[in-house]
């Protein structure tokens, strides 16, 4: 049984989603099954992570077809930790949506689709086959379409049109890239490609292919000139959905970029310059976009884009320290962004609006809760010793070693603009004396909720904040993990040997 441990989180998610479809009409059952299932899934993911941490990279061949002919599933430290983070964020969002979503939305199958989305995420992290990665990406986007449009309000539908078009375009570009790659090498297994792509003589074609992958994954991870679908759509669905989108969806694109550009493609000076340029512009444009917004959810949407820049910068520099920084930032960003969208949901519930101009008084009304919300907000800025601070040190020191002062400037500028945005948000939402808002009919205000609903809204935020605090104060262990991951990423042979069972 221990041989198959790589697949357990995947299989369990699939089992969970099927069980939830059988319970289609029984909403309260769905809530209970989803939360309990997320706990079990967290246990399985911790088990997988501990196993990989102790025994090194683990792989299995689906269908017992030998690599490279079959589809391999590979759990290295990177994939296993991302599966673990998906489980953590999944548990938090599962609980949060039980408290925050209206039953009209739950009746149209929120929970089954949500768990299919988590299944797609786990699959994308664990797979060792390029085409299989495409299939998981499609599962993710189909589920995200459904989650985005559940409820069918006008803004949701308009956002969904943009989201659908650009994500479909990204999939087609990704598929085109796979076709070219298959034509060049005759293989789809990433471990096999790692050796075969290096032997191709026509380097120009390889470079074009690498750029196709960059554009395909770039649209999905919302990098600089390709991000316009994100701020048009992420603020439209309910906060529970935005939380899982903002926390995990763009990060899969980043994961795929890091995986492809460390394992399959070499980063040559041209691609390096492209990546660093993109990182600079992403940091800058995302921050500027967030600066002019007045809606809490829209600010966070732009910040999602902004902070993608850090990870792209780490990938572009491609040294051990830089990759460790990028990976660390990825971990931090998943937890904090998920948490922030949930926070914005609670703020919306308390005041009945997400508009900065109308909000205010939150600190006076609820000091304890404000203190809780401060943790993710200021972790995002990276005020030491909170979690966003440590990866930036790695990134800056890597850029210093490369004498690349532009990137240092971009990283500092990005942090500085984030600080301004968060401070503005803090003073507008928490400290300002707000105006008296007219009470809306039929709006489920926070203080009108029953106690167990309040708990369901607050406990996930506390849970994620505690983990964020652990990342901040226990940064050494996370740093060790990130360094080990970046060593594994730079030494392809570990991955290749694990797949071919040498």
């Amino acid at each position, binding site marked *: 049984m221990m041989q198959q441990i790589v697949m357990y989180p995947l299989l369990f998610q699939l089992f969970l989603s099927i069980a939830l479809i059988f319970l289609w009409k029984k909403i309260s059952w769905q809530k209970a099954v989803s939360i309990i299932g997320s706990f079990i899934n967290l246990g399985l993911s911790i088990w997988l992570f501990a196993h990989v941490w102790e025994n090194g990279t683990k792989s299995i061949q689906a269908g017992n077809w030998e690599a490279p002919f079959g589809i391999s599933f590979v759990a290295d430290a990177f994939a296993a930790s991302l599966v673990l983070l998906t489980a953590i964020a999944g548990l938090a969002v599962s609980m949060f949506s039980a408290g925050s979503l209206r039953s009209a939305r739950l009746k149209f199958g929120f929970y089954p689709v949500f768990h299919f989305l988590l299944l797609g995420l786990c699959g994308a992290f664990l797979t060792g086959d390029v*085409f299989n990665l*495409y*299939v998981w990406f*499609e599962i993710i*986007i*189909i589920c995200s*379409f*459904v989650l985005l*449009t559940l409820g*069918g309000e*006008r*803004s949701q*539908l*308009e*956002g*969904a*049109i*943009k989201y*659908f*078009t650009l994500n*479909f*375009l990204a*999939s*087609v570009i990704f*598929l*085109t890239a*796979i*076709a*070219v790659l*298959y*034509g060049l090498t*005759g293989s*789809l297994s990433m471990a096999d490609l790692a050796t075969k792509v290096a032997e191709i003589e026509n380097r120009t074609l390889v470079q074009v292919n690498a750029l196709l992958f960059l554009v395909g994954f770039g649209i999905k991870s919302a990098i600089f000139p390709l991000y316009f679908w994100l*701020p*048009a*759509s992420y*603020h*439209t669905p309910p906060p529970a959905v935005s939380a899982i989108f903002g926390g995990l969806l763009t990060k899969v694109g980043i994961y795929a970029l890091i995986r492809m550009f460390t394992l399959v493609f070499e980063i040559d000076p041209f691609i390096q310059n492209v990546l660093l340029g993109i990182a600079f512009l992403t940091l800058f444009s995302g921050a500027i976009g967030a600066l*002019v*917004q*007045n*809606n809490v959810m829209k600010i966070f949407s732009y910040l999602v884009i902004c902070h993608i820049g850090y990870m792209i910068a780490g990938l572009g520099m491609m040294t051990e320290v830089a990759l460790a920084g990028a990976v660390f930032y990825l971990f931090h960003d998943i937890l904090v962004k998920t948490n922030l969208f949930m926070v914005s949901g609670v703020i919306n519930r308390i005041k009945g609006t997400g508009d900065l101009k109308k909000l205010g008084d939150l600190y006076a009304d609820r000091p304890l809760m404000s203190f809780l919300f401060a943790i993710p907000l200021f972790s995002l800025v990276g005020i030491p010793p909170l979690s966003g601070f440590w990866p930036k040190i790695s990134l800056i020191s890597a850029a210093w070693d490369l004498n690349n002062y532009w990137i240092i400037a971009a990283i500092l500028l990005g942090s500085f603009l984030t600080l301004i945005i968060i401070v503005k948000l803090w003073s507008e939402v928490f400290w300002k004396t707000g105006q008296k808002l007219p009470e809306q009919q039929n709006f489920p205000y926070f203080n009108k909720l029953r106690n167990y609903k309040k708990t369901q809204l607050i406990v996930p935020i506390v849970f994620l904040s505690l983990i964020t605090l652990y990342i901040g104060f226990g940064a050494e262990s996370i740093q060790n993990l990130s360094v080990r991951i970046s060593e594994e990423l730079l030494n392809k042979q570990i991955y290749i040997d694990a797949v071919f069972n040498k």
Partner: protein
Amino acid sequence: MEVLLATMIGTLYAAGIYLMLKRSLVKLIIGVILLGNGANLLIFLLGRIAKGSPPVIPDNSKIFLEAYTDPLPQALILTAIVISFGLQAFAIVLVKRVFQVVKTDDIDEMNTTDAQV
């Protein structure tokens, strides 16, 4: 055959992107479908077009006795077709809902999520 297919793929991509740039929602969906078909044909072309028998080894032998065709591109295309079938079904329902709610086919009218700062 290769030249013909390559021309067709080019035409499909060009037509798909052209239609996606139009302002009409229905044309957007048709463009999306054409693009998907172009990508499928591209896999077919790049998997090498060769005549051969199915890649099944007969009962009484251990190796392939004659030239066989690569079965993988077809498996990939089938998967891609199934996926795009699902996506297109969703897209068509979405377009219909959008038309019912927004009461127009013009994408330029659908900018309320971007416009409000």
